[in-house]
């Protein structure tokens, strides 16, 4: 098996001896993939990333990043990081901020000049290169921060909610940038709670919940695993229950005889019995659609307490 970009066997973090932000985390990120770490507020996503970047001291950290133990400073020269709610020094221009970030990572003067130019154009700040960051809007700062994170030509990039505050066009650009980075062979570690976004770009995801990884795997596998079919049947009289289906729902109140059935099966065979049953009782099949489970469903299922049926509250569990 080739060496992973990140291979954590056990990471724990207890803040101030009482807040168990990370209880037991075990994550593997392959080289050259976009990895999404998902989880509700306060589940410990930022804490995990900060531990990998030596911003927070772990209570326990077993594992490697780019083949070096966690906490090794030298390996950070090949890592890029866009912190959550980052703030560029307001007295710098966008170019100066990017170059400053580069020089701290040990990038030579010539290289950081060139890369600052390129990157600022890539993130769409061509006309703002020499303006002070203090005059930037939130999304523009986020873009400049992204450029600063990439100036050292990193093999591994951590982005903590990179699209926060960015307009739809910018979000699309950032997504494209992530895909471009992947095609250049870089590994991207994305923290997000924007599930639709994660769904569009991530190869693999993990869901973090109250400091524990509850689900981890290839996005396709995870979503396929719990795929479903939606069957629409028009009845002439009253709506009936169908075998192997969840309780029927009427989506459009103006059309009370059109019932939606959800068939929790990833194989089309699972729908056949229901279709036969409905047709035999005078129901007209309007449509049958295979619905890949959305990431949101997977996520909601993961964060819902199976006993009470309510979503878990934000923050670390006591």
């Amino acid at each position, binding site marked *: 098996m080739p060496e992973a970009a990140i291979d954590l066997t056990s990471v724990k973090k207890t*803040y101030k001896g009482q807040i168990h932000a990370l209880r037991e985390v075990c994550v593997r990120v392959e080289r050259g993939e976009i990895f999404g770490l998902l989880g509700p507020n306060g589940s410990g996503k930022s804490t995990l990333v*900060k531990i990998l*970047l*030596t*911003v*927070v*001291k772990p209570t326990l950290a077993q594992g490697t990043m780019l083949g070096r133990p966690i906490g090794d*400073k*030298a*390996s*950070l*020269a090949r*890592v890029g*990081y866009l*912190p959550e*709610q*980052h*703030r*560029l*020094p*307001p*007295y*710098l221009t966008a170019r*100066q901020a990017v170059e*400053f*970030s580069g*020089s*701290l*990572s*040990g990038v*030579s003067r010539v290289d950081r000049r060139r890369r600052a130019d390129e990157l600022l154009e890539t993130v769409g700040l061509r006309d703002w290169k020499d303006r002070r960051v203090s005059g930037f809007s939130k999304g523009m700062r986020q873009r400049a921060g992204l450029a*600063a994170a990439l100036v050292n030509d990193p093999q591994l990039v951590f982005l903590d909610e990179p699209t926060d505050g960015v307009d739809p066009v910018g979000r699309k650009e950032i997504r494209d940038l992530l895909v471009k980075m992947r095609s250049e062979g870089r590994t991207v570690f994305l923290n997000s709670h924007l599930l639709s976004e994660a769904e569009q770009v991530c190869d693999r995801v993990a869901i973090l919940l109250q400091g524990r990884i509850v689900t981890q795997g290839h996005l396709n596998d995870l979503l396929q695993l719990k795929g479903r079919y939606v069957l629409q049947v028009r009845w002439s009289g009253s709506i009936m229950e169908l075998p192997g289906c969840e309780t029927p729902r009427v989506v459009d109140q103006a059309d009370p005889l059109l019932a939606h059935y959800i068939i929790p099966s990833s194989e089309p065979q699972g729908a056949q019995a229901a279709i036969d049953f409905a047709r035999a009782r005078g129901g007209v099949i309007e449509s049958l659609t295979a619905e890949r489970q959305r990431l949101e469903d997977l996520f909601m299922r993961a964060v819902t307490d199976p006993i009470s049926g309510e979503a878990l509250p934000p923050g670390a569990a006591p």
Partner: protein
Amino acid sequence: MRAFTAILIDIYRELSSKRLFWLSLGLSTVVVAAFAMVGINEKGMTIFGILLEIPFVNSTVLEPGEFYKLVFYALGVRFWLAWLACLLALVASAGLFPELVSSGTVETLLSKPILRYQLYLSKFVGGLLFTALQITMFCLASFVVIGVRGDAWEPGVFLAIPLVTLLYSYLFAISALIGTVTRSGIAALLLTVLIWGFLFSLNLSEMLVNSFRIAQIEEIAAIDRLVATQREKDVAVDTSDLTLEREEAVSTLATLSKAHQILFITKSILPKTEETAQLLQRWTVHAANLEAAAADDEDETQSKRSRRRGDGNFGTTRARERDVTAAIERDQHGRSLWWVVGTSLAFEAAVLAWGCRVFSRRDF
């Protein structure tokens, strides 16, 4: 090294983005310009070309070179550099460390391949360097003024650079620590100035108590001398009055010594801002002082007057004023450079180490 250079440039950009930085530079220029406007001739002192006839202040008594040096040390160094310029530098740099640990920027810095203590110390050394640069500019300008106007090219002026930087570094280390702990520039500034004020008053009380203590020692010696001379004239003379006086002086001395010991130990641990600034005078105006003392010796009438009861110094009645002054001066100058600078630097190192530790251990 690349990272250190980057941090230096960054500090320059941060400082120069503040109005205060330019204000203090501007004020420095004004001070030097005013300095150049002050002149001395045979009749008296001139300021902006206006003649002030102050007794003893004219070029027949004081060489113009000496005069400029005196003004430089008394006003330029002791007042402007050691007080106002230091204060302005503290104000300008108070935000450096809170900015370092402010959330949103600190994460980026910590995620770089630089050890935390290196970040902290780089920022400290960088901040210091800029203050040193300002002091250097001031001294250079003063050097030229003294040279051109006073016709005395005085390299001793440049001693002010390391000394004032040193003095500033004690305070800056404290400000850095407070800024790191509280993350507030205002808190860093206010507490540092408060501590500075405390150090100043501690120094003042120590000096005073010490002067009284030394005066008592001189007093006892004077009484002993008096008893000896009286005995020489007449063996059977009654000296019980003097013995009583002596006993009183000895008990006062014991109290003063105890008080002084406590103050002295406290002062030994803490940085000595005042004495560091005074080192400059000790080294450069030293010779002039000795001459003044010699002139004092010739002035017999004055010393005779001082010998009278009730005309002494620092609570003495019998000791001669110039003996007391000389003894105090001897004591001051007897304090080694190691004691003044070494113990202050030890304190500074401890404060820096503490700051590094706080910075290195915190979760951001």
